[in-house]
């Protein structure tokens, strides 16, 4: 991408809008997918595109495009965005102030996943495939590997100019076992910020999910109802992302006084042991970055401190309208979308217990591990375990079919009564919001215990 800072600044010069910005993005990616014994897809892709966003009287115009436009074309796109913003704008623009920054950041991961030959990646996936397919009882598997690299250039009418680059590696492994019409699956989802080596030594885990898929064919289904549940760090990370993280994204409440009342800072959500943080400044995680997609520097954001709501995630607009400071959480999945409020690395801070302390005293409960998925309506959330066991008399007992858990966002955090000390960050998967998916994030937690969690079942 050869676009110069001058080109962008020139295109934004003298624009009649309250605020305007240009973002250009260059990306490359490769992927390999196996289904069963065979490669199903192998491909390489590249893209170059960008967008212009303009704000006039509280209304936004947004224009996205492929190709790198000529200087006069870029100005035309800026003008179109301004015309759209003018048509949409009917009130007052309020963006929270942010320092003007000029910085070019280059991230050089070692080794860059895109420079590793496809043959080497395939050789690794072949090993994983062999492990799964040689497990007795396995019908098929899906192994999906993808990596990518991207560089973004951002310039705003305020004079900020930021260049950032990042890479990403993701691997999903699914083992499928079948017995007649009964099909069971177990999966693994891992990722890293561009470090191929982090997915290169997963042979034991791949063996484990193969074994589990077969075992599930004979595992019983749990009876639906309320249980005390203990979640492992991976699943508890998904829980904190779904059950609370999305609720702290201010774009769903900044225009809504009714919701602001129920999300007032200082409100108690949980017991004193509960601390929840979103932190993009942690080094080397998939949700880490220095500046968000509005050029706002990131920081560590406490959302819950000692059980009390103390902060939330903001874009410049949500912060401006709520009279708070921007948190550095405006992110877009690609140049095809405007930035919206998103999480980065979200986690529950460790306390002092260990797993046995959490299990103690549970007569009949559920121990759930690993994740399958999760979603939220803001009031209600659901998330699903990759693996589950009954807890009987304080001990982990027989395996059961994986469970889907659900609860009320406002009530469930208050039902967490035990937090262990073994914080672990989960780097798999991606977050979806609206039509923007997947966005690299990470989440984590120590083991936690939740009383009265609603579990679906027979």
């Amino acid at each position, binding site marked *: 991408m050869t676009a110069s800072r001058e080109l962008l600044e020139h295109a934004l010069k003298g624009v009649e809008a309250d605020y305007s910005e240009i973002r250009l993005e260059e990306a490359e990616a490769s992927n390999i997918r196996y289904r069963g014994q065979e490669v199903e897809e192998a491909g390489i892709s590249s893209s170059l595109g960008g967008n212009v966003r303009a704000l006039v009287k509280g209304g936004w115009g947004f224009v*996205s495009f492929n190709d790198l436009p000529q200087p006069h074309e870029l100005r035309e796109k800026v003008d179109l965005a301004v015309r759209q913003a003018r048509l949409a704008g009917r009130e007052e623009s309020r963006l929270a102030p942010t320092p003007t920054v000029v910085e070019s950041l280059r991230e050089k991961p070692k080794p860059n996943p895109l420079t590793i030959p496809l043959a080497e990646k395939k050789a690794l996936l072949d090993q994983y495939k062999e492990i799964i397919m040689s497990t007795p009882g396995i019908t098929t598997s899906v192994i999906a590997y993808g990596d990518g690299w991207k560089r973004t250039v951002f310039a705003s009418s305020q004079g900020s100019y930021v260049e950032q680059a990042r890479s990403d590696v993701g691997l999903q492994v699914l083992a499928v076992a079948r017995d007649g019409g009964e099909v069971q699956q177990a999966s693994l989802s891992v990722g890293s910020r561009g470090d191929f080596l982090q997915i290169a030594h997963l042979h034991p885990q791949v063996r484990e999910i193969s074994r589990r898929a077969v075992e599930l064919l004979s595992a019983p289904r749990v009876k639906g109802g309320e249980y005390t549940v203990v979640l492992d760090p991976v699943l508890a990370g998904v829980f904190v992302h779904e059950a609370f993280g999305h609720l702290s994204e201010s774009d769903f409440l900044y225009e809504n006084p009714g919701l602001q009342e129920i999300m007032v800072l200082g409100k108690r959500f949980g017991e004193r042991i509960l601390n929840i943080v979103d932190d993009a400044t942690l080094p080397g995680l998939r949700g880490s970055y220095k500046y968000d997609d509005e050029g706002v520097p990131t920081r560590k954001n406490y959302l819950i401190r000692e059980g009390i709501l103390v902060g939330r995630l903001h874009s410049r607009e949500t912060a401006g309208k709520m009279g708070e400071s921007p948190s550095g959480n405006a992110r877009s999945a690609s140049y095809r979308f405007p930035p919206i409020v998103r999480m980065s690395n979200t986690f529950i801070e460790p306390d002092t217990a260990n797993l046995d302390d959490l299990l103690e005293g549970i007569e009949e409960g559920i121990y759930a591990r690993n994740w399958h998925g999760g979603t939220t309506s803001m009031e209600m959330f659901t998330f699903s375990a990759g693996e589950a066991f009954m807890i009987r008399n304080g001990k982990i007992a027989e395996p059961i079919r994986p469970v889907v858990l659900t609860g009320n966002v406002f009530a469930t955090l208050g039902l967490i009564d035990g937090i262990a000390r073994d914080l672990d960050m989960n780097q798999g998967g991606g977050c979806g919001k609206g039509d923007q998916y997947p966005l690299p994030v990470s989440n984590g937690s120590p083991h936690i215990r939740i009383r009265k969690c609603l579990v679906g079942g027979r």
Partner: protein
Amino acid sequence: MIESLLSRAKREAQEAEVYEATLEETTAAFETNRLKHLQTRSSHLLALRVVKDGHTGHALTMGGKGDLAARALEASRFGPPTHFHFPQSIASSSLPVYDPDGERMGLEAMVGVGEEVIGRLLNHTPGLQCNARVVRGSLHIRLLNSLGGEASYRKSYSGVEVEGVLVRGTDMLFVGDSWSSCHPIKDISALAGEVIRQLEWARQLAPCPRGPLPVILSPRGVLSAFSQPLNLAFNGRVVLQGASPLAQMRGERAFSPAFDLWDDATLPFQPHSRPWDDEGVPSRRVPLVEKGVVAGFLYDLQTAGQAGAESTGSATRSLGAPPSPSPSSLIIGEGTRTMEEMTKDLREGLLVEQLLGAEQGNVLGGDFSGNVLLGYKIEGGEVVGRVKDTMVSGNMYSCLKEGVEVGRGARWVDGALYTPPILLPSLSVSTRG
């Protein structure tokens, strides 16, 4: 440009294919009852597939630089063994999927549509907070392969979606619906009317009993519970690997005789219709279940070659990916009773409109388990109010066996599924307390 790319690829590959998609899309987005964003998106996608030494390679660019042919050829070294030839001709078709009026709809008119929908809902329920999107777009597809196949078509599409939230304390009621077509939207009455019906039925809260209960899935409820399991069950790739429970059941009874299902990309002006699929194979109506018997699966060229079958014209390229089999418009055949008639005969039951997170479990095996995001208690043959803190769980394959009743009054849901309501005589319901 695409001709030169093809001839460049042909120099080293035995077969090659170029796919080009150009998209223009405009969106008016409303947040909390007010117009917030106007957006324009243009994108241009160019994909090259090559067959070299019996293996397929794929490369794609959206405005990017680099040698697409070299990349596709490199990818072919690791790609899947090829089980097909590209079509030697692509039949022209008169299937209408383009309405020039759709493209002509101005920004002001789009804004007007959004304002009218929201206005009607607020008129019914002041205090409702609505997010809405009005979209119009056009898509131009061009396909060219080295065996002589060449064709292009243009498609227009429009859509409106609205979601309303009513907040009372920490209680949130979610209502909403969507509409889409290749025609521009003219009348939003049906859309607004549907959401107003939801608001009426959800006016009161009703306690929900637990245990096995008869459950009516409204058309939107059918989508929530069954769309992912159905999409996977008939996918040629999944079938070939034996991962679909229906894999060995072609010609056998797997469902109730009341259940009919087909895929149809030939319906005029439906947003998922197309004259031919993303490999140039003509679209057709593909029977999947006939009177409970598994009648077919969805194939693209590769999976058809592997299965010793014919492509069903089901190749679809989702953004950035090579073609794979996928349904276009799934249609469930209608029965005799409407949702109202089914409701009238239930002493006690649940009517489910939307499930949250139902598709996170073992969808390959047909399991669904979700929180009832919008659903109502039925008592004495009437809807008595909305239920909360309630979860339903089941398995699609067990649910669609004997005893299931497929109703009348089918409608499009999200432009991808045309379904009537379905009554499940006994479904597991869990609830708090």
